[in-house]
């Protein structure tokens, strides 16, 4: 498991409430922005079986996921996309997208419907 984040302090979050440190547990951590190809290579993208793009930026995620897919040929690529419209279109294009907004909408709908019935 290798994590990349542009904020070095994010590393602390990985250690919090854990018995061992992130590295002792076998994790890797690389500081960098994901559009930097060198950073992705340093983080080990060439050996990755799965790549997940889950930054706070939809467009960033969609672009780096396509880099992972087309340039590094990572077998399984997962993208977080907050905007349901973009998530839906890109999933039609063959990207595996996860849309937290859509999940929340679906759950809320279930709750509302169960109350209504």
């Amino acid at each position, binding site marked *: 498991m290798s994590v990349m984040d542009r904020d070095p302090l994010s590393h602390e979050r990985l250690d919090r409430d854990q018995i061992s440190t992130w590295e002792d547990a076998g994790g890797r951590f690389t500081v960098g922005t994901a*559009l*930097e*190809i060198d950073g992705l290579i340093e983080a080990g993208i060439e050996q990755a079986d799965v790549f997940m793009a889950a930054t706070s*930026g*939809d*467009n*960033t995620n*969609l*672009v780096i996921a*396509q*880099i992972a897919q*087309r*340039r590094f040929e990572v077998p399984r690529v997962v993208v977080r996309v907050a*905007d349901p*419209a*973009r998530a839906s*279109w890109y999933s039609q*294009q063959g990207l595996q997208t996860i849309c937290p907004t859509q999940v929340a909408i679906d759950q809320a709908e279930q709750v509302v419907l169960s109350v209504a019935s």
Partner: protein
Amino acid sequence: MYVIVAGAGKVGWNLARELISKDVEVTLIESNHERFRVVEEELEHAAAHGDASELWVLERAGIQRADLVVAVTGDDEDNILICQVAREKYGVQRIVARVNNPRNLPTFKLLGIQPAVSATDLILRLIEHEVPEYGLVHLLALEEEHLEIIEFEVDPTAEATGKRISDLDLPDGSLVISIIRGNAGFVPKVDTVIEQGDTVMLILDPGLESEVTMQFAPSGAAA
């Protein structure tokens, strides 16, 4: 022609202004509300507020009938995405993207976002034009066509100096297309003699630069 410009920074705003003055129909999309208000005062209905990477914003701007989409925001990922969606989802025939960080240029190419324009690269070309190494200047790379146009200032001691075009030892796949002598340029004939101080322009297959350079660089210089 209908053009959508995404991003009303200095580039986007001035581009929209130029196009409008040429009677082109333009919509300029800007996500920052304050900036939008400033731009709207001048461009009125040609300015639109919203995030141009959101599909409904593009649709509201009428992307289905756009002939050209120009993405010139300050964010390379946004520019890539806007162009990708414009072409692949809405079938826009022509796109132009701005590259803010030249390091991202390979990503634009990887995803087929062409042409991608980088101001840093353009300025670098101008610098190379002013301070050329061995007098070779890359004028234009026609990447789709796999051709390049380059320019040399002919060195007095070069192989080519004093030779006729037909006697030049140029590799197959290269051709002299023009000579600039004094302040005038002309298209040479086979018997045109190359003089020192001439500037010659060649079109060639990429990869032939060093062979071609040997003809025009100072003799004995490493090509």
